[in-house]
């Protein structure tokens, strides 16, 4: 396993949000589903060291990363596309992408290759290469955020609601591109749009009230009556 989360508990102040989560990601693409407020972002932010775990273990690539500073987690090989994008609005697409690779040892010396790959995946970024990111549309910014993460040549790519605020036509496109990536990179993705994302993942977890309520393959989830009624809206 590349990522192993065991009995993870955390929260905000006195509010306990995660009540013991077990989750793992190997060389595969894994979905993380659940209603708004279930704790998906909290789980991801805790893996990333943005929130600190109260208890439990987070292992990545053989190292214990639980509670480590965010920049060290990033350097170890996890790239995050945050729900809020967290770009550098006053800097160009070029600089945002460059900084995605600049501090990650895994990306050292292969910046050009990663850049070509990103610009091929999102040709619009090539056109807007010198534009300030803060002046771009939400959808384009989402692409910059995904591109910035890919620049790091990550071992694990985590995407938090990548289709948030995107037009439906673009959503399908993003997932099609993610499906292409999953051959090379381990992916953990949270999504409100369960139907689209089931096409791009191998396995999935359903998080409810801060704990894993369900785990299954993509086909299994698509057939599960609870998933169908609660998330596929049939």
């Amino acid at each position, binding site marked *: 396993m590349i990522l192993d989360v065991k009995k993870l508990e955390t929260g905000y102040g006195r509010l306990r949000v995660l009540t013991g989560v077990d989750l793992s990601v190997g060389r595969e693409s894994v979905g993380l589903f659940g209603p708004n407020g279930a704790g998906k972002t909290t789980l991801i932010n805790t893996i*990333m060291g*943005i929130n600190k775990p109260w208890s439990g273990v987070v292992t990545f690539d053989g190292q214990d990363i639980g509670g480590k*500073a*965010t*920049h060290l987690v*990033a*350097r170890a090989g996890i790239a*995050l596309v*945050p729900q809020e*994008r*967290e*770009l*550098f*609005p*006053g*800097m160009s697409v070029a*600089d945002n992408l*460059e*900084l*995605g690779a*600049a*501090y*990650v040892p895994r990306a050292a010396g292969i910046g050009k290759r990663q850049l070509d790959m990103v610009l091929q995946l999102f040709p619009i970024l090539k056109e807007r290469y010198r534009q300030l990111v803060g002046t771009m549309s939400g959808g384009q910014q989402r692409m910059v955020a995904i591109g*910035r993460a890919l620049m*790091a040549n990550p071992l694990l790519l985590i995407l938090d609601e990548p289709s948030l605020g995107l037009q439906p036509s673009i959503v399908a496109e993003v997932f099609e591109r993610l499906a292409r990536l999953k051959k090379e990179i381990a992916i953990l993705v949270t999504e409100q749009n369960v139907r689209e994302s089931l096409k791009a993942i191998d396995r999935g977890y359903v998080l409810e009230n801060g704990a894993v309520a369900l785990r299954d393959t993509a086909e299994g989830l698509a057939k599960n009556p609870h998933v169908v009624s609660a998330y596929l809206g049939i």
Partner: protein
Amino acid sequence: MAMKRRTTILVVLGLAAAFLVALWKPTVLIYGVQQAGLYAAIAIPMGLVLGIVHIVNLAHGEFMMVAAYATYFACRATGLDPLLAVLPSAAVTALLGWVVYKLTIRRALKAPELNQLILTFGIGILLSQGVNLLFTSQTRKISLEYVSASMTIGELSFGVWPFVFVIVATAMAVGLKLFLTRTTTGKAALAVGQNPRGAAIVGIDVDRTYGLVFALAMALVGGMGALFLTRSAIFPGVGGPFTMKSFCLVAMAGIGNIPGILGASLLLGLSESFLRAFRELRGWADIIFFVLIIVVILGRSLKGRKS
């Protein structure tokens, strides 16, 4: 966009003032520009800290004062010229800045702004009162021959040495611009200023970047301390007005706007120089910065009401 417009306004106003003053009394223009250089060279490092660490350092001028004192005693002991002390002084204040950052400022970064202001204000008092206790409030000066070098053009005669401040301020602005937009470390610092969480996510050590930027700013202001000593007398309270004026200039320019600081300094330097030209108004020169800051605040609240 708003930033660009403000920079343009400041620079145009500054140049227009320069032109009018030049028609009337060229020496007023020359002294105004020289003073503007001094103000800008001191304010730019404060703008750097505010733009990236998001802290108003109310001990800013006091750091310069401490550097000037260190230079003074070093030069007295060795007989060397303060100009030779610019780099060593910068190195020492950088170190002092780093220590102050590590011990105090980083602990206040998440605190309310008022606490941060009280903290740096307190550091400033500590520095000026510490120097007062150790070395008394006596005024100290190093007399240098080249400082009184003057130049005569037609009827016009003026000192040339203070132009060094104009050169230093310009070099600082250009150098910082290049550093922040052309080097990886500079881009990372800019990124930290715009979005610290985003910066950490791509592997940038935010805390270390804050420390480096603070130390760099203190290095610049420390170098200025040595340079300041070439021309001016020093005493424990000499830094205070520079803190206030730097703050005024940085507020006029807007956060993270280094070219704007140059324009604002020109406006302040010329206004002061203009007032000094009239004997009855001379006393007002020292508080004109206060008028400028009130105008800025009024302008901003009016604009805020409109939108």
